[in-house]
């Protein structure tokens, strides 16, 4: 019987059997950041263990940094200590760090691919749940906790068991203005936030093949929001073209051998998946979340659902609570709902293509009065490119704030927060209660939808605006 892509990569990384059904797997890349690593380094010191492979470990500062000032001091005393701890730990152990003053600093899941650190066939881990992003390259990439960070630092391995496999096939061609963000929100809406628990999801189908690497990253990024351990996509010519020439990608003398290996990375035709889901991509409309978890999502032209419409009593109760928290009513159209804040950024949607899509909607227009709108590019590279292309000027002219790279308002660990009761159209990945600040109300959308909301001061169906503009 054939193997799935996940099974191929898993097997090629087995160092040995630990016991029963647990294998020790080798880790090709370990990405670390300031928030989830200090306790791991402290643990190593306490046990007298060195970092086994500093050359396979890469660090950046992103979660806890100011996006206004490039200074360790800018986000407060405890934040400064955390940033200094990362710098000291990296210096002590010889780990490459892209700190706040490095031109390529940025969100860990934006810079990993950008620098060519992320490659097909790898196992990549990071103490952050959105590590699933890197699966876009045909790698097994998943988030780990701090104890596991310590384990990887010490041994460059991780104990794992084989996960179940889920095939998500998105067929057809996406409509104009329907983006990978809309696709993944629609998939999560269909499967639920726990639909992927215990599974590694492989995305395939014509709609996926047609996506750029940026789009594939957005898709895999949010596979954690349906509970999947990881999401991945078989590498192809799009993947190889993206990687060629990047600073940490295979050099010229190894390039052909690397590509030859990468071309063997696909699920065999007769591979058996534990679960298969098919979604017609041509039917997906621009999506907006209405509740407090990502499965509470609708197409922009659908009314907010009534709690009674859920046959599952617990889901109905969750919907009731979510509507109260979000200040919405069943039957309401989100196109009638005003926004206070617009956030374009995060490891989901802060890449150059995302900023281009948003800027195309913004060009020549002005942010609605009373709306606070900010764009936080994912990395120094994205920021420089957006400035060179004139996107930054477009945003600034329209009244957006243009910031330094970081996680920012996705989780509000720094001072970029949404106030209680305020409504935010956000390109990030989680609409949990209080995620962007205590009492904040988050609606997850694509960059174009967020940009359109900023201009209109309320949610709009971006496909109708754009049609009007092109007429």
């Amino acid at each position, binding site marked *: 019987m054939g193997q799935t892509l996940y099974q191929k990569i898993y097997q090629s990384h087995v160092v*040995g059997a*630990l016991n029963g059904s647990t294998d020790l797997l080798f880790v090709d890349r370990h990405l670390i950041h300031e*928030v989830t690593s200090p306790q791991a380094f402290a643990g190593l010191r306490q046990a007298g263990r060195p970092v086994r492979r500093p050359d396979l470990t890469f660090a950046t500062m992103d979660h806890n940094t100011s996006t206004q000032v490039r200074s360790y001091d800018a986000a407060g005393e405890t934040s400064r*200590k955390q940033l200094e701890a990362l710098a000291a730990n990296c210096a002590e152990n010889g780990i490459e760090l892209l700190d706040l003053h490095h031109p390529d600093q940025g969100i860990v899941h934006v810079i990993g691919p950008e620098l060519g650190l992320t490659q097909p066939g790898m196992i990549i881990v990071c103490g952050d749940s959105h590590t699933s992003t890197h699966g876009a390259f045909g790698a097994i990439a998943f*988030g780990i906790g*701090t104890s596991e960070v310590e*384990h990887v630092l010490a041994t460059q391995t991780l104990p794992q*068991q084989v996960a179940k496999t889920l095939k998500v096939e998105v067929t057809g061609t996406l409509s104009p203005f329907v983006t990978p963000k809309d696709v993944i929100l629609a998939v999560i809406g269909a499967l639920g936030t726990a639909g992927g628990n215990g599974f590694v999801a492989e995305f395939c189908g014509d709609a996926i093949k047609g996506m750029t690497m940026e789009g594939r990253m957005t898709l895999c990024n949010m596979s954690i929001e349906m509970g999947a351990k990881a999401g991945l996509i078989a590498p192809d010519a799009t993947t190889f073209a993206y990687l060629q020439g990047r600073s940490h990608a295979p050099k010229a003398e190894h390039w052909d051998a690397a590509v030859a290996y990468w071309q063997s990375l696909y699920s065999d035709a007769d591979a058996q998946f534990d679960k298969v889901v098919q979604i017609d991509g041509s039917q997906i409309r621009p999506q907006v979340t209405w509740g407090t978890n990502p499965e509470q999502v609708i197409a922009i032209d659908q009314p907010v659902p009534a709690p009674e419409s859920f046959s599952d009593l617990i889901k109905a109760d969750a919907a009731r609570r979510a509507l109260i928290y979000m200040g919405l009513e069943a039957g309401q159209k989100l196109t009638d709902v005003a926004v206070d804040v617009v956030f374009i950024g995060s490891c989901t949607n802060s890449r150059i293509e995302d900023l281009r899509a948003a800027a195309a909607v913004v060009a020549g227009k002005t942010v609605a009065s009373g709306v606070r709108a900010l764009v936080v590019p994912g990395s120094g590279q994205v920021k420089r490119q957006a400035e060179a292309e004139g996107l930054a000027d477009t945003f600034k002219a329209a009244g957006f704030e243009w910031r330094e790279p970081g996680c920012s308002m996705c989780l509000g660990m720094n001072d970029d927060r949404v106030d209680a009761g305020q409504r935010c159209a956000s390109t990030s990945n989680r609409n949990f209660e209080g995620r962007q600040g*205590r009492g904040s109300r988050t609606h997850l959308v694509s960059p174009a939808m967020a940009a359109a909301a900023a201009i209109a001061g309320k949610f709009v169906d971006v496909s109708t605006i754009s049609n009007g503009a092109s007429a």
Partner: protein
Amino acid sequence: MSDIFAKGLVCPLDKNNVDTDQIIPKQFLTSVSRDGFAEALFFDWRYLADGSANPEFVLNEPQYQGASILLTRANFGCGSSREHAPWAIQQYGFNVIIAESFADIFFNNSINNGMLLISLSAANIDFLFNRSKQGPQQWQIDLANQEILLGNNTAIGFSIDADVKQRLLSGLDFIGASETLSPQIDAYETRRRAAQPWLG
């Protein structure tokens, strides 16, 4: 050695999809320590905006003070990978969580801190919630025999991965266990360098 892994008062948290942002909000993640998170547990639910205890939140109810077993529903611990979530739960005093299901990363993080997470069918979870509505419950967890002892000769069996069970019972340092495979790690690195020199 007793077969009882844990025993104590049960606190019922009747919600699905409790995410790690609720378990411990972001403002507590700036610490460089593993300790001091007990007060942060369920912060936004537990405290009102003025800092006083929210009397409507179950953890604040007088009959659940001192609880060490948390009963909840599906997909507990979803969201962020922050290990601060199990640290906060454990430092508050819980060492066992019983739920319909858990998010993967949260599950691993909890086990790595020696906590026991028990998954039961939706029907059994309903049964336990109904029971907890009758009054505060004191249960015992027999990990060796995989049973929750509810008292009055009533018990509910549970299944658990054999490797996870062994780790919890032995209390082994999981880095130390992996280090016993150091020769295999060395050999793997040698093979990797030869086959895929671009990986380093």
